[in-house]
């Protein structure tokens, strides 16, 4: 939809700038003017736009309308858990008693916040079957880094400094090897077997005195529950290693099993996926770390302690503390509190049965899609899937239509694309995660769109190959963008 004048998104802020215009009126100074610092310290080159408040609103609103979003489109982006997040959760995070409190104000003046954090630690420990919880990490990958640093600290504390290898399945998210490398480990790849489980033979070969541990995503990025998981944990433990759990896919397991019971030693949760913070175009998130008792002394600081429980403070009060052998502080303060408030609200409004219904409906929806599409899209692992189904566009590829083309064509049908080309071990992968929040009407319409696109791959593959045809822009020159990076507006020379 074309928009004119100040609602035309073709003009950037600096191109809208008119000298003297302001979007905000600042108050007058109510104290006497003070001597200014030496003029050599002051700048005269500040280049920011000068636009009015209405124009800012019109411009950003027009921009927002160029996006697909959960509120406006079905968004089955695999591995990302793009589900409806109740609006009450946002509203609670914006309460002035939460949004307008300073992280360093005395603990007596933040008891409500500390109590909420303490209870959330307890909830997450219960849901995951883990003894220790730190809420201080700000995203999934941030939690991973803390978790693998804890594994390193644990081994070093045992005097076991020769454990330099971290085994990571070939289907893992890129954050796993990147986090392990930041924690100083050498990454070794762990193969998957023909059923999509960890290859036990390959694991046996790696399980030696130099193995620090493994990083497992459960269910895996293939959308499958690893049938060997208990055995995987046993083999690693027997070799003296530890098992890290990437909780990115926890939406599938809520209330169905506890990772701690299965043998995991340390995990992170993606609160923004599983426990309801809207993704915001790429964050914020929160990646709390939960762990077994042996790793609890190494948790990132701070954690919240209840008064009277460990000797500090009086009963009914809460305080921040640092675990005795903590890996240290991972961020400036106590975690992404606003996200933690949302997760607390979410869990509190669900209870046991509500938590279980999330995983139940998420897995049911994914299997419904699997069943309805496997005759026309190749299904590399023909098993009951968990919260997402990984299909392949290999059959369409033979007709000149790639997974990318199918994904782009879906945009024309008003659906966000699935995740493509991931996991890396599936050719032409289309990873579809419907989530629990979508009803059958939506799923049926999505199935029909994928069936129509398959028909188009016979009738007019070239048309599909050039999709999308109805979006604000068509396919973009990504190679040109990378060859000659234009990363900011500059005045015309």
């Amino acid at each position, binding site marked *: 939809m074309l928009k004119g004048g100040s609602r035309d998104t073709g003009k950037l802020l600096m191109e809208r700038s008119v000298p003297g215009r302001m979007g905000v009126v600042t108050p007058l100074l109510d104290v006497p003017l003070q001597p200014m610092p030496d003029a050599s310290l002051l700048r005269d080159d500040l280049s920011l736009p000068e636009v009015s408040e209405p124009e800012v609103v019109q411009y950003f609103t027009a921009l927002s309308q160029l996006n697909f*979003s959960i509120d406006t489109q079905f968004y089955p982006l695999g591995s990302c858990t793009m589900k409806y997040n109740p609006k009450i959760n946002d509203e609670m995070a914006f309460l002035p008693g939460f949004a307008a*409190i*300073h992280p360093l104000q005395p603990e007596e003046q933040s008891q409500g916040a500390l109590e909420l954090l303490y209870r959330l630690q307890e909830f997450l420990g219960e849901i995951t079957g883990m003894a220790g919880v730190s809420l201080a990490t700000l995203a999934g990958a941030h939690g991973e880094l803390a978790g693998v640093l804890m594994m390193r600290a644990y081994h070093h504390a045992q005097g076991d400094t020769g454990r330099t290898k971290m085994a990571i399945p070939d289907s893992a998210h890129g954050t796993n090897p990147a986090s392990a490398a930041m924690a100083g480990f050498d*990454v070794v790849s762990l193969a998957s077997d023909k059923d999509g489980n960890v290859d036990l033979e390959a694991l046996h070969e790696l399980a030696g005195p130099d193995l620090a541990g493994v990083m497992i995503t459960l269910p895996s990025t293939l959308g499958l529950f690893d049938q060997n998981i208990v055995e995987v944990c046993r083999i690693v433990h027997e070799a003296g290693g530890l098992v890290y759990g990437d909780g990115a896919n926890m939406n599938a397991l809520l209330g169905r099993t506890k990772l701690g019971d299965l043998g995991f030693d340390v995990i992170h949760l993606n609160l923004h996926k599983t426990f309801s913070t809207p993704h915001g175009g790429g964050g914020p998130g929160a990646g709390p770390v939960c762990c077994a008792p042996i790793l609890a002394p190494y948790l990132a600081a701070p954690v919240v302690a209840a008064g009277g429980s460990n000797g500090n403070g009086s009963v009914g009060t809460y305080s921040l503390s640092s675990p005795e052998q903590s890996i240290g502080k991972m961020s400036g303060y106590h975690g992404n509190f606003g996200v933690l408030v949302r997760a607390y609200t979410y869990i509190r*409004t669900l209870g046991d049965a509500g938590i279980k219904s999330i995983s139940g409906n998420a897995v049911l929806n994914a299997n419904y899609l699997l069943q309805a599409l496997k005759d026309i899209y190749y299904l590399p692992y023909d098993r009951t899937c968990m919260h997402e189904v990984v299909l392949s566009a290999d059959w369409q590829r033979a007709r000149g239509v790639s997974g990318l083309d199918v994904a782009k064509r879906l945009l024309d049908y008003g659906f966000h694309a699935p995740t493509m080309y991931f996991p890396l071990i599936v050719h032409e992968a289309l990873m579809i995660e419907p989530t629990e929040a979508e009803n059958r009407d939506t799923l049926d319409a999505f199935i029909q769109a994928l069936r129509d696109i398959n028909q188009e791959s016979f009738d007019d593959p070239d048309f599909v190959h050039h999709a999308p045809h109805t979006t604000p822009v068509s396919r973009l020159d990504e190679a040109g963008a990378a060859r000659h990076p234009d990363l900011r507006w500059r005045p015309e020379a």
Partner: protein
Amino acid sequence: MLATLGLTSIDQLFHDIPDEFRNPPLDLPEPLSELEIQRELAGLASKNRALGSGPSFLGAGSYHHFIPSIVKALMTRGEFLTAYTPYQPEVSQGTLQVIYEFQTLISSLFGMEVANAGMYDGATSLAEGVLMACRITRRDRVAVSDTVSPIYLQVIRTYCQAQGVRIEVVRHWEPEVGDDTACLVVQHPNFFGGIEELGEFAELAHGHGALLVVSADPLACGMLNPPGHYSADIVTAEGQPLGIPASYGGPYVGLFTCKEQYIRQMPSRLVGRTVDTQGRTGYVLTLQTREQHIRRERATSNICTNEALYALAATIYLAAMGRQGLKQVAELCYHKAHFAAAEIEALSGYSIPFKRGPFFQEFVVQCPAPPSEINRRLMERNILGGLDISVPPYSDPLPAELDKGMLLCVTEMNSKDDIDALVSGLAEFANA
């Protein structure tokens, strides 16, 4: 739907989970309705003292600044709020163009050539800046000025613990930099409020082939020369002062800028401008080969989800404030802080130890009584005092004679009445 799968119960879908571990007992409290949870959380929120509920003079990295109402109104639009990372550019131009605007305004604010799409917060942004400097110089010794936030120093240590990097805290008046130093790390204005001599630091670092890494206050750059003016190589910042609520420490957004020659070593996302198949301007994520989803264990960072929504907030804030608004806010902070400092210094028993150097909106006061005690008494008047820096880690770099230090922060949110109330509260302890 179950019937189409030939199943009778949802539980059958979970048969891959071993029986003994399936359906464990779950002990969570009974669920609450929306009405009830509002009540419960309003109760918890009321146990916290909110910044707007009375005069507040606490800063030290998280600041109480004015937030125009359009920031929340625009950032909570569902199309921004409920979109994912813009991996499908054709249907994410809104988010992508916002990030391009963000990169433009942030690089311009710091006088730097390029900015990325944002990091977690100021502390992690600085830690990643340090790691980046080590990669660029292929050196592993890092000199951190003793006036850098002790909190940020802790996070740098955490990030570097497994990288074989040596962290050395150096005196800011005489930093030791050698030919094996990767970078000199300073803060602008520094943790104690002072405005550092960035030009001299740059000369020193560059003379040894090291980089100058600066953690800056974005709002101070509304009036002060930005680090880019002094040839800083990497400039990071806490973006919270730009329209983001204090929110007990997060979510915030880390700002990250550098010289263009170093972009391939940058962490986190970058958005670039390009054209579509019909020649129309559009925006895409670019230089992605730096990132974890492609380069995996050799990526420049493990960061994936960042703080995009708060990068949007900062962009809206900067658009609304504009060139003049930001300068005016910075000057309000400056004048009010200096007025407050002068008033406090006039009280007997109080002194301003670092007053010889210029400062921005924060300053240290040596008090006549323990700062924690003074803060308790101030709170009886519903005044949130400054940070007690007489305790570790804040006291670590301080001289022994500065044993009752309080770090006070005065912003545009503090009226003259607020400042008068603070001064009269402090006066209670004068001559004590």
